[in-house]
């Protein structure tokens, strides 16, 4: 992110030290991850030691220090989803995408993540791809779901 944009972001939060989590979330909202240079700049401008910022960035699930794929595939690991077979869906996704949780596919299209409960249990097992909800997911439906996104990407090329 450009330094001027970061300055605006910090101003939006009144340069308050306690707002650091919200600031990092806004940064990630723009950049899709937390770039090292941006964190160094924020550390300087807010007078927060860089190690403290990395402490926060690595403590909370929301943040990624690595660039993430175009589509965030988020598998709900809530208890209700688990009881309905959520783990099988995750295993199938790992196979289909060829990556582990936290990793990105080589073409930069997908990053696989898990979330500890989206609070949409009636739809369980549930997988979100970006902002799209895919409810009542089964290991059988995984391939066709992923294919849809791949097709769109191909079409755009």
């Amino acid at each position: 992110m450009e330094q001027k944009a970061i300055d605006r972001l910090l101003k939006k939060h009144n340069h308050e030290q306690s707002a650091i989590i919200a600031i990092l979330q806004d940064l990630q909202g723009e950049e899709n991850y937390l770039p090292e240079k941006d964190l160094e700049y924020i550390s300087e401008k807010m007078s927060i030691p860089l190690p403290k910022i990395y402490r926060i960035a690595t403590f909370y699930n929301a943040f990624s220090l690595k660039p993430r794929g175009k589509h965030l595939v988020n598998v709900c690991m809530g208890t209700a989803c688990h009881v309905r077979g959520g783990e099988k869906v995750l295993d199938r996704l790992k196979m289909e995408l060829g990556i582990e949780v936290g990793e990105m596919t080589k073409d930069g299209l997908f990053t696989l993540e898990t979330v500890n409960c989206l609070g949409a249990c009636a739809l369980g097992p549930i997988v979100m791809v970006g902002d799209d909800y895919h409810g009542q997911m089964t290991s059988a439906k995984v391939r066709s779901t992923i294919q849809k996104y791949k097709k769109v990407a191909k079409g755009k090329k």
Partner: protein
Amino acid sequence: MKKILDPRELEKFRAQILEKRDPKRPCIAVTSGTSAKAYGSEKLVEAFRTALKAHRLSRKIDLRVTGGQGFDEREPLVIIHPRNILYQRVDPKDAEEIVTETIQKDKIIERLLFVDPKTGEKILNRDDIPFYKGQMPIIFGDNGKIDPTNIEDYLAIGGYFALVKVLTEKTPEGVIDIIKRSGLRGRGGGGFPTGMKWESCRNAPGEKRYVVCNADEGDPGAYMDRGLLEGNPHRVLEGMMIGAFAIGSDEGYLYVRYEYPLANEHIQIAIKQLRQYGLLGENILGTGFTFDLKVSRGGGAFVCGESTALMASIEGNAGEPRAKHIHTVESGLWDKPTNLNNVETWANVPLIIHKGVDWYTGIGTENSKGTKIFSLVGKVNNTGLVEVPMGMTIKEIVDDIGGGIPENGTLKAVQTGGPSGGCIPASLIDISVDFDKLTEVGSMMGSGGMIVMDDKTCMVDIARYFLNFLKDESCGKCTTCRDGIRRMYEVVDAITRGKGKEGDIELLEELSWVISEASLCALGSTAPNPVLSTIRYFRDEYEAHIRDKKCPAGVCKALITYSIDKKKCTACGKCKKVCPSDAITGKKKVPHKIDSKKCIRCGACIAECKFDAVRIR
């Protein structure tokens, strides 16, 4: 929007709002909380707008977009007022027909009605549906009456009347006394008497005090607070304001987990409207009461539901809990006295003030007053949010309201209290929902997650699931929690993979004792509960895994094999197509076979087979 300067002006404003509204006027209420949105409710709302406009009814018929109304399994829901007709699983294509048939001609669209699976009867009226009939939605019920983004709707149902009553007629001590006598206990899981907490905070030395709303709701499978904050944020805010007055606080924080963007949005809108009307800020309604609050977003950490970790997070730190012998009511946020309560606890407060202690204490049991909202999820037919009086039995909740177990399953256990709770076996299902009774059987009330499990659920796997969750969610500070939980996980995981040994159960019990006694915070000290409760009631399952290397429920992959029942297989070939490891062979019209060496037990074939031909042994 002008600032309202005194209570009389507020009542005048309320009267004006009510005057403009005709209760007999037809209204189409469409649920559009997160669950409904996932089913496409936004398109449905647009379809209604279009249809109403096309038929020139936009001014005669109200279209109200509400938060969730509990019956998430059947979303999107459309409720037609004043007849209280409920249409379920409504598609945007149905909007036109609903307008022309039901609104204009008063005709019912039968296919959209709920059908009672027990009687086959089609039910018209929302309150006659078994899911709703058994409930006592004194708090959650208001979700259906308002658009959460419009403060006028909340005022129209009596909102902020309790706040005015408190500011004009009561003293802070008087309010604390009311809450004490009401018997209200914390709804976040601890069940601590709310009135006592308020009193301790008020009496703590110092000038500055904070009130905090814990909307972190980390228990997986529990989303009651989401339903409340999305559907009726004002109710929660009003509770916080009354609490702030009683405690002597002028500043509050609402800590919302980041996984709830819609709740965050609705809260922000509500706060903005309150500020515009002068109901938040300096000298509210001219009474001298000053109060404002901010929203603080979580970053994705279950441990931040613990009050000291939550406060560390608000302060801009990692959510690491601190020792509990310093109480947060004396030294919390920025070392100042802080009163933290759960969303649902705050939501109870205006009701208690409005309707009085006698009314409130008439609901519930001797030591658990009022109602509790549960998220009834898992292997249950009617998944959703339900509100019942304390004292109702779990059996009634699962059978009568929940409609029982789907797909011919049998009830095995109900898990309450999330990762800090335990499983209640089917044999104890007549237990009443009550703080103390649930603790007695080795579980706890928790925040309200109620996960229903059937005969196809492996209880050892459930223990493994919770330990896996906790080992990553632990902040990692103390040895017993960080290393202890991980070692418990390793032992249970080995058991599910057929590598369990004699003595494992005893080792788990020993570890459990140390972790619960020696850990710093409640995450650690309650972490052994799911393991202990599954050992207590399902020891035979553990032993089958350890001694016989078998998984009776057919879940643990290393201990089961899939095979195809020749009698049921129609050779349709669907399973073969979805198998990711090419383990299924078979020609047309010949029953298919699974090569157990290639099979990875992913379950895709079971999900696809319409003839129930895949067997698990």
